């Protein structure tokens, strides 16, 4: 199929903001960093029940050794990305403020591969779901929802939506995945379509990634399911990669408030998630390393880098040349939706895709002042909410009106707070309102 036929006609969405792309690292091939001296692998790197460590202090572990698992259905096993000796099992605080156990490993630098790894044999739907679970795959877009649960909804599914929009500024990790592992991306989609019996897949990509679109289309042409594969090229306006918008762009269906993509017949997977499935099927190596974009105004040499899951932020930043100015903010994830970290001693998670260090100028752009009701937040909201009204209703704690305002629809994309000239903390307002309504 020609590239032209594969690309679906564009769909318009309302709202959103034009953010500087700042994709400084788009052309930087991913480098592998030297093995850090120590890593800390958190036992809760997903939404759901945390894992229970199955190693103890003094145990020797290899690359791919199981470190923790859980017998709960909504959970995802955790593996070691390094070889070495378990030095302790401690408590750490996650970016979300939740405490969890972490297995701390002193590495030996050998990167010995675990000899018990096996390539999965796929024959049925259950085989694929088991493989995805054993792989330890969680939603790599940042949410960290266990993938084997997501791939097994009760509702009938007719479209697999692949989220490759990568609309956050700075981050290029998904883009590099598409360029460097295009074959794995297509194979991963193929496995899902084949074993879950889904008729078609739509990849949603922003139009600032023409190379990736062309490459994926070329590889899809050689595949024997070529005509079940479509590309949706969307204008590069934040937040095209938000799940509800991605589904709307790919299928024209609107997910009702409080519902999931499966309710409108879709499964949404991040592009790196599907290629991870393909890599696991091909090699049997579970998810133990991540491609990260390291960037920001305080970083000496921004780059894309492969890091073992559990590497400390400071080691990753040291590999990127260290700080050129004193950092004022360190962000795990993108600048629009990522978490600001209290220090750089935090380990990398499976779902991490970027580490940004911002200098003083970038971290404190302006002072907060009173709302002048300019209405920019209303125009920017992709969910058609009215953040300025919500703030007023939250102030008086009016639960009924907050519900009418549709606050549960908010996906915390940050467009309202981004455009606010008065720098109001509108995302916090939305989060608090959601908590009241729930």
């Amino acid at each position: 199929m020609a590239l032209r036929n594969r690309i679906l006609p564009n769909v318009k969405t309302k709202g959103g903001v034009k953010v500087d792309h700042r994709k400084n690292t788009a052309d930087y091939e991913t480098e592998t960093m030297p093995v850090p001296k120590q890593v800390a692998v958190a036992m809760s790197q997903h939404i759901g029940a945390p894992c229970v460590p199955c190693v103890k202090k003094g145990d020797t572990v290899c690359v791919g050794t199981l470190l923790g698992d859980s017998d709960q259905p909504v959970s995802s096993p955790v593996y070691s990305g390094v070889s070495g000796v378990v030095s302790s099992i401690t408590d750490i605080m996650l970016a979300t403020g939740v405490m969890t156990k972490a297995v701390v490993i002193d590495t030996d630098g050998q990167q010995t591969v675990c000899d018990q790894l096996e390539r999965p044999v796929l024959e049925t739907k259950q085989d694929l779901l088991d493989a995805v679970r054993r792989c330890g795959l969680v939603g790599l877009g940042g949410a960290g929802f266990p993938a084997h649960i997501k791939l097994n909804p009760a509702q009938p599914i007719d479209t697999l939506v692949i989220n490759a929009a990568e609309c956050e500024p700075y981050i290029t990790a998904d883009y590099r995945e598409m360029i460097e592992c295009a074959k794995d991306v297509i194979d991963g989609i193929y496995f899902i379509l084949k074993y879950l019996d889904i008729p078609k897949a739509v990849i949603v990509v922003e139009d600032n990634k023409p190379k990736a679109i062309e490459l994926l289309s070329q590889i899809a042409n050689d595949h024997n399911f070529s005509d079940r594969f479509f590309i949706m090229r969307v204008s590069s306006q934040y937040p095209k990669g938000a799940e509800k918008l991605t589904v709307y762009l790919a299928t024209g269906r609107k997910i009702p408030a409080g519902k999931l993509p499966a309710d409108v017949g879709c499964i949404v997977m991040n592009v790196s998630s599907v290629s991870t499935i393909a890599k696991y099927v091909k090699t049997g190596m579970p998810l133990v390393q991540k491609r990260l974009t390291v960037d920001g105004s305080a970083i000496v040499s921004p780059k894309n880098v492969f890091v073992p899951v559990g590497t400390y932020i400071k080691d990753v930043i040291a590999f990127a040349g260290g700080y050129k100015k004193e950092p004022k903010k360190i962000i795990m994830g993108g600048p629009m939706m990522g978490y600001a970290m209290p220090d750089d001693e935090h380990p990398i998670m499976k779902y991490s895709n970027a580490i940004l260090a911002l200098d003083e100028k970038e971290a404190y752009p302006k002072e907060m002042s009173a709302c002048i009701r300019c209405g920019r937040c209303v125009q920017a909201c992709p969910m058609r909410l009215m953040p300025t009204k919500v703030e007023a209703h939250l102030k008086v704690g009016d639960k009924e009106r907050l519900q009418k305002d549709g606050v549960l629809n908010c996906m915390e994309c940050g467009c309202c707070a981004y455009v606010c000239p008065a720098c109001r903390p509108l995302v916090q307002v939305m989060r608090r309102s959601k908590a009241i309504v729930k």
Partner: protein
Amino acid sequence: MNKLVVSSSPHICAKDSVRSIMLDVIIALVPAGIAAVWLFGFRSLWLIFTCVSAAVLAEFISCKILKKENTTGDLSAVVTGLLLAYNLPVTLPLWMAVLGSVVAIVVVKQLFGGIGQNFVNPALIGRIFLMTSFATPMTTWTAPFTDAVSSATPLASMAADGMANVPSLVDMLIGNHGGCMGETCVIALVIGGIYLMARRVISPAIPLCYIGTVAVVMLFAGGGEYMLYQILSGGLLLGAIFMATDYTTSPVNLKGKIVYAVGCGLITVFIRLFGNMAEGVSYSIVIMNILTPHIENLTASKPFGFQRRKKQEAAK
């Protein structure tokens, strides 16, 4: 490394600030100010200067007395002062202008909670206050380029004896006729309006719908030439571009803006055609300001993925 900031996302934001927006409005008002000095002489500069400094000082002092953070830095008081000055005749005694500024800033703005909390446009209330208190000095018009007192505004002359004594269209465009300092020069106001729209400070919806409504009704009421004079005179452009678009007192969403602007247009037309005043822009905007919260509630946008109640019931 122990001084990292932890805050909610997003961690970057757009460049515009309240101050930069107000600065844009001030820049957009400069051409009209230059036109005022050119038409009515240097006294207009004095009057503008008096209004602006009185407004800023009033804001500074009321912030101090009310023990609030000093907000003069956001330049909104400068905008209020400028707008009030543009709505005054050039011959007005300076102390009256000071009084108008103080009422606008202290009574309308600061006593209701400062920037973003006033429910009507402060400059307009300042003008209405002066109009009702000092009717004669507020309606004593000077002809441009002279010191001759008592030149009727085009609207007053149209109300009195039709199209017999109106100035030429060219004079209307450059502002060569009696009126408030900042409202006469159409060209300067339009330049300011285009600047604000190009900078995306205001949306074209309010000015276009406001002027459009007046145009359509006046076309039916008195024909093409009558309509043109109605649009080009009497503060309609100053009001539609700079006063009706005030963020705080106009609806935030597009549908609301259209309803609000059409409402402004209709009230202006009714006052001009049926009221006992030749001018009606200030009152119409103030009335619609008061209705703004209700317009906003009635025109609230439907959140993404929300179904209308009828559809929801049908689905059940």
